[in-house]
């Protein structure tokens, strides 16, 4: 779950990391006073806000209100700006970079720091990035922090503050079940004080049972994907015109790939999962139909799932509500013969292999 900058900042502040004072507003009128120069930042879950006109400075209350009015309503990379963060303007002498993320290959948290902050870390040369894994059994150690300060060539008072911030960032990372906490830039002010001038936070979806309070940013998904999510169906909308439904994430991807090989274009990724509950099958088909595919390609491998029970669910939904498009079905595994009979009876086109089904679906999608 990606959090907005304002909430990311709250997390940092809660763990004792210095952040500029600021508040969230969603209309110019909500701003009743500012203590000095401010920066007005669009709250959208995408990067590149500055270039898109989503970050502006103001010196007076009138100016600040005007900037708020300009930024709210903007569309940045497809995201409508609904609120802004009005925050104390930080004078920056130097910009550093600091982050902790999950490194899936190492299976450990990865601390990254660089003296080249303020730009996308992807564009920073590898040798300018300090990287160290943090063993979760012992946590971040002082020698690693001394090493970090040395690597970034930080003068002592700054190095001490950065070390302290890194230590707090790791506590926050563990306590908040983060997948990523990134401070970019980590600003060094002219007087030498170090402040988190930005905050990016991604929280592990699977940890939400122990963090009920988070407000998710407007999810980066289509309304139909949102509907599927609410029904507990794993569904991704794609560009093509063939609705793909299969059981298991891997098999669903493999089916889309098989379609691609014969010139077909998948329009949906719909993973039925391990269910053979006819009601769940019906719901999945309803979602699929709403994506308005020209052809539906169904690929079921019944290992634990019984093919005939899945087929019965499909039969019911197709008979009672119609499929809305021709359905090519390949069903294999446990009780496959019975399943094929049931599907034929429902008027579906059946195939015995994934490739054959993909070919038929691709042909139909070109004819239709």
């Amino acid at each position: 779950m990606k959090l907005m900058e304002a909430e990311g900042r709250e997390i940092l502040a809660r763990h004792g990391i210095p952040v500029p004072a600021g508040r969230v507003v969603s209309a110019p009128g909500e701003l009743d006073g500012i203590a000095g120069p401010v920066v007005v930042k669009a709250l959208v879950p995408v990067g590149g806000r500055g270039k898109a006109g989503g970050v502006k400075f103001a010196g007076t209350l009138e100016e600040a209100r005007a900037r708020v009015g300009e930024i709210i309503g903007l569309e940045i990379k497809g995201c409508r700006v609904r609120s802004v963060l009005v925050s104390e303007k930080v004078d920056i002498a130097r910009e550093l970079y600091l982050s902790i993320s999950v490194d899936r290959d190492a299976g450990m948290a990865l601390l990254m720091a660089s003296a080249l902050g303020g730009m996308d870390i992807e564009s920073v040369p590898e040798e300018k990035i300090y990287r160290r894994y943090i063993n979760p059994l012992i946590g971040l150690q002082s020698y690693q922090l001394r090493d970090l300060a040395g690597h970034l060539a930080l003068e002592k008072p700054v190095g001490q503050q950065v070390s302290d911030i890194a230590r707090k960032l790791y506590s926050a990372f563990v306590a908040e079940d983060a997948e990523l906490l990134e401070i970019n830039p980590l600003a060094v002010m002219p007087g030498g004080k170090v402040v988190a001038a930005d905050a990016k936070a991604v929280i592990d979806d699977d940890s939400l049972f122990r963090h009920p309070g988070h407000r998710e940013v407007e999810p980066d998904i289509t309304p139909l994907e949102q509907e599927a999510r609410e029904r507990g169906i794993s569904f991704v909308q794609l560009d093509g015109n063939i609705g793909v439904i299969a059981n298991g994430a891997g098999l669903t991807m493999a089916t889309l790939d098989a379609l691609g090989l014969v010139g077909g274009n998948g329009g949906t990724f719909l993973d039925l999962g391990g269910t053979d509950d006819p009601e769940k099958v019906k719901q999945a088909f309803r979602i699929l139909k709403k994506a308005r595919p020209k052809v539906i390609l169904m690929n079921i491998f019944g290992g634990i799932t019984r093919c005939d029970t899945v087929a019965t669910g499909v039969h019911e939904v197709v008979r009672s509500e119609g499929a809305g498009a021709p359905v090519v079905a390949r069903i294999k595994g446990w009780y496959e013969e019975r399943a094929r009979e049931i599907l034929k009876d429902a008027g579906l086109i059946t195939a015995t292999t994934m490739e054959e089904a993909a070919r038929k679906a691709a042909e139909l999608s070109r004819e239709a």
Partner: protein
Amino acid sequence: MAIILDRDTRVMVQGITGHQGTQHTRAMKEFGTAVVAGVTPGKGGTSVEGVPVFNSIAEAMRGLPAGARPNTWICFVPAPFAKDASYEAMESGIRKLVIITEHIPVQDAMQLMAYADYKKAVVVGPNTPGVISPGERAKVGIMPAAVFRPGRIGVISRSGTLTYEVVNSMSEAGFGQSTCIGLGGDPVVGTSFIEALDMFNADPGTDAMVMVGEIGGSAEENAAEHIVSAGIRKPVFAYIAGRTAPPGRRMGHAGAIVLRGRGTAESKVKALTAAGVKVARVPSEISGLLKGAGL
């Protein structure tokens, strides 16, 4: 011969009284696996499918004679309790853990794996269908036994149903399996492709390996590098799912996502091909590749 599981495998089922635990205890026993104990706090003294149930792992270890104690543990408990249960298993001396549980927080998974390293325990999963050694009549997991055949090919996979699809087509073509191991669909898992390849490479009962990978992370690229640097001699074959998956979208599995251009199917296929691995374009091609290599 096989890896991880053999005829001496004695299994303990954590969460045996739950729906999944009970159903799969029955299926594992039907396959021939020795399931010797089950654990559900508060349900000690009962039995499930003829398997005695204990209140804790320690109680089970005390309650069973030395030669009959479990050496392999399978976890069905819900995500919030899985880490604690895994620690208990390792503290009780168990060194083979199969974690079926899905949606374990990644911080829990990282801590768990670090502790398993320290204890020198083999963890398979989480979010795995488990492990099966058909010739040894041993299954610790939820895979459908009917698609497997005893044989000499080692299968390593990040997927569930897709594995059954691949294995079924192999079995139909006469290629049985020494062991099939599901690594799990999560970003942080225990046993990796590399460790599984090493185990199969050292196993006299395995002639070749089949890897079933998917988009996300760089486990397949790392495996490709390892095949070259460690001098894996047995032939390796692969199928990678997600060639047509759009970047930035999570394709069902928590770990199946292309981020900032990393973890694409293309990069995996390229790395594996460069390491001499024959990569199938569709799952059913695997058998043809095995035949072509004279296996």
